[in-house]
């Protein structure tokens, strides 16, 4: 068993890493849900999301049309088929004719002709849809197979629907008619186009005008903001610097205090220095000098590196002292060390939207995978350092007897040297007397 404080630190660290991964996973899954939904069939205008289940619809007068249709049904079927074909032809003509705004289609929700709304908002339907209330269910079946690419054909459909209604007569018990239509429509299937999917009709979509206007205003405002940022007026900058100085002098302290944020930034820099130095030291130590010149240079490099390490250590001691005399101010709400814009320190934050261009799915996947890999490696290296700091002293301090020490060694080896992926085997080899 590990000592309590060591356990706590290790478990906290690992749990923190686990939580971060879980959070990212949640974000990804949310995004995946949205994307999958978009790639299925959907209705661009209404909020039609489900297909009416056939079962509950069979309540009333009409017998299931699974049996042979009556002559009247056949006539109606034929009439309906013709109507469908006509609708398809009309719509194809519209789509070929050109583009029209999506805005009218958004407004069309208030027009009677959107059964989609009734599907998702039943309480509204009686009032909204008015006289066509009874009509919408059966025509739902109609629409199911003739779902338009854009919803514009709704303008046309009422006429078709009117005709079919007239043809079918006042027979609008919702269920049966709906089912029948479904059935008939499936009989008429070869002619009817498929439901809307992004794959087929995605390129026909258009954004609503109001949105386009707001979006372009938005991007131009951001551009203005960022250009104003870079060419900040001299007056303002001078005034600000002067103000800051005045505040400093009135505070009774001549030197600005070191803020926790600055300490952190410096520690991060020195961390980077440390890893770069260590890499370089490795290189030099493992290089085999060919002649005296190289050897000399190697020696000089190592001495120079030694001096730099000394400087960094000194700076760290100074920071430590500064932090100690003013008590280390706890971070404000939330965890700031990683959440603060660490790279925004040097780089100017740009406000205007920038593009990241990719050319194929594979490229995007490679990019995302690499990003994730770098983040994971970062996490792994941090964990490795923490584990080293905790476990190595334990192993060296523990008494090398008993199975618990062997467990510890084995675990330490696996965690520290194999990243927890593999475990070594220890064989007891008692000499046989």
């Amino acid at each position, binding site marked *: *068993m590990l000592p309590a404080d060591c356990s706590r630190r290790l478990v906290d660290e690992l749990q923190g890493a686990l939580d971060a991964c879980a959070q990212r996973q949640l974000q990804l899954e949310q995004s995946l849900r949205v994307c999958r939904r978009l790639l299925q069939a959907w209705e661009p205008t209404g909020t039609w999301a489900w297909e009416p289940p056939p079962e509950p619809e069979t309540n009333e007068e009409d017998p299931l049309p699974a049996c042979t249709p009556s002559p009247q049904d056949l006539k109606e079927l034929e009439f309906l088929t013709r109507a469908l074909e006509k609708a398809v032809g009309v719509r194809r003509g519209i789509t070929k004719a050109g583009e029209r705004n999506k805005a009218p289609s958004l407004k069309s929700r208030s027009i009677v002709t959107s059964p989609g709304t009734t599907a998702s908002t039943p309480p509204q339907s009686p009032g909204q849809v008015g006289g066509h209330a009874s009509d919408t269910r059966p025509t739902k079946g109609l629409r199911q197979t003739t779902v338009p690419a854009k919803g514009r054909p709704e303008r046309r459909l009422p006429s078709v629907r009117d005709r079919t209604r007239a043809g079918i007569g006042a027979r609008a018990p919702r269920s049966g008619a709906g089912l029948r239509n479904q059935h008939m429509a499936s009989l008429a299937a070869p002619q009817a186009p498929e439901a809307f999917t992004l794959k087929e009709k*995605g390129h026909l979509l258009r954004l609503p005008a109001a949105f386009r206007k707001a979006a372009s205003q938005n991007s131009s405002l951001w551009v203005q903001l960022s250009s104003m940022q870079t060419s900040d007026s001299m007056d303002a900058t001078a005034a600000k610097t002067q103000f800051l100085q005045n505040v400093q002098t009135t505070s*009774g302290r001549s030197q600005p205090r070191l803020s926790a944020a600055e300490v952190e930034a410096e520690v991060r820099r020195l961390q980077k220095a440390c890893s770069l130095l260590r890499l370089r030291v490795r290189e030099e130590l493992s290089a085999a000098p060919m002649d005296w010149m190289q050897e000399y240079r190697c020696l000089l490099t190592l001495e120079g590196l030694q001096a730099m390490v000394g400087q960094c250590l000194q700076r760290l001691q100074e920071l430590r002292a500064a932090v100690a005399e003013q008590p280390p101010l706890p971070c404000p709400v939330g965890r700031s060390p990683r959440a603060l814009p660490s790279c925004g320190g040097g780089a100017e934050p740009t406000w205007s939207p*920038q593009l990241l261009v990719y050319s194929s799915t594979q490229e995007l996947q490679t990019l995302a995978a*690499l990003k994730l890999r770098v983040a994971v490696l970062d996490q792994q290296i941090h964990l490795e350092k923490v584990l080293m700091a905790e476990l190595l002293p334990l192993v060296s301090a523990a008494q090398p007897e008993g199975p618990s020490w062997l467990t510890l060694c084995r675990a330490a080896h696996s965690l520290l040297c194999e990243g927890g992926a593999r475990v070594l085997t220890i064989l007891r080899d008692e000499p046989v007397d």
Partner: protein
Amino acid sequence: MRRRRVDPAAGARAGALPEAIAALSRSLPSGPSPEIFRRAKFDRPEATSALWQLLFRVLSPLPAGNALASIALEVQARLVKSALCSQGYPRPALAQLPEDGSQGSRELLLALSWLLARGPVPEQMLAQTRVPLGDEMTVCQCEALASLGPPAPHMEAEGPVDVRRVQWLMGKLRFRWRQLVSSQQEQCALLSKIHLYTRGCHSDQSLGHLSVTEAEMLRDPEGGQQLLRTLEHENRRLEAVLAWRRAEPVFWQWMDTVLGTCAPEAPAAASQPTFLPWVPECGDGELELVVRELQTLEEELREAVERRRVAWEAKARGCGRGPEWSAARRASRETVEKELGALQRCWEQDSGPAPAHGPYRLVRREDGAAGDRDLRAAELIRTLRSQEACLEAVLRQLQRQCRQELARLAGALPGLIWIPPPGR
């Protein structure tokens, strides 16, 4: 308002000041009215709580939400003090203000202006709550796998833990990493499909296709209306920020007068205020880790350098002396100095030509053509690959170090055979 002087410039200034302040408060989320600012100059108590709340909104790194609004004023005040202190606010009077909002509005106004002078606060706050219209990807790694918010307290590991539990947690972590990889691959594939299928749709030619947000808006008009409203709200804030930036100089003149009305601080050592005991080790643990690493490195270097110096001196004594000898040595010294200088610059300047912090909008183009301000995926991939290689080298080195250390510690025991796991 101040209309004491008669000259027209002052008249213009007097008119410009309220506008500037109004623009400022419109550009900040839930900004107080210009009247509050004026009252604060005269240190009126009624202006205090609004300014505490505004400072809290500005300083809290968490995005705004109902949770923030429900925090009591005293708590907000304490957190504001702590945050300002950690940013290095120099005036001690702030720390001594009462937390019930009964007085101190002028000091709070000064603190707010101090923050405004140090950085582009309204822009930063807008960027935080920005409406993402496109599919975005951040290029910098600063928030890659960082968790937001304080770590949740874990009930379990309060006592000593078996090391096998640590191994188990590590295994769980490895599994989560694998899960992330596969989920992300799928997400990219779907995203790419959506971009592909909607090409030719967008009114903006440079974008060319819809993003998921935009397609989602078409699928769900209610959500679309919401998005539109938020977008328009953002536009109003943007306009306010632009107005503020244009009117700024007037504000700073006024703030100088505010500062003038304060009594000068006595340079006494202010008592350290007590802060909320938040995560007490943040930043400190990192410092210790680095110190330890550097100390180990120093030890190693000391031994190596001593050894080599001795060997070299012995060798050098054997060789001759001469002008070409010392010239060669000098040349070596200069080369080494240059190299080491370059190395030092690597960490002194934060990575020179870094891509901008902040999210990029993903755009799919078959030809991969990009403008000058845009980033190409291929370049980013190259950078990431080199980063990956660097990090892998560091990790391998650390593991090697551990292996040596463990071998040293454990290998001394007789009667045991250590069979390392099979290599990759």
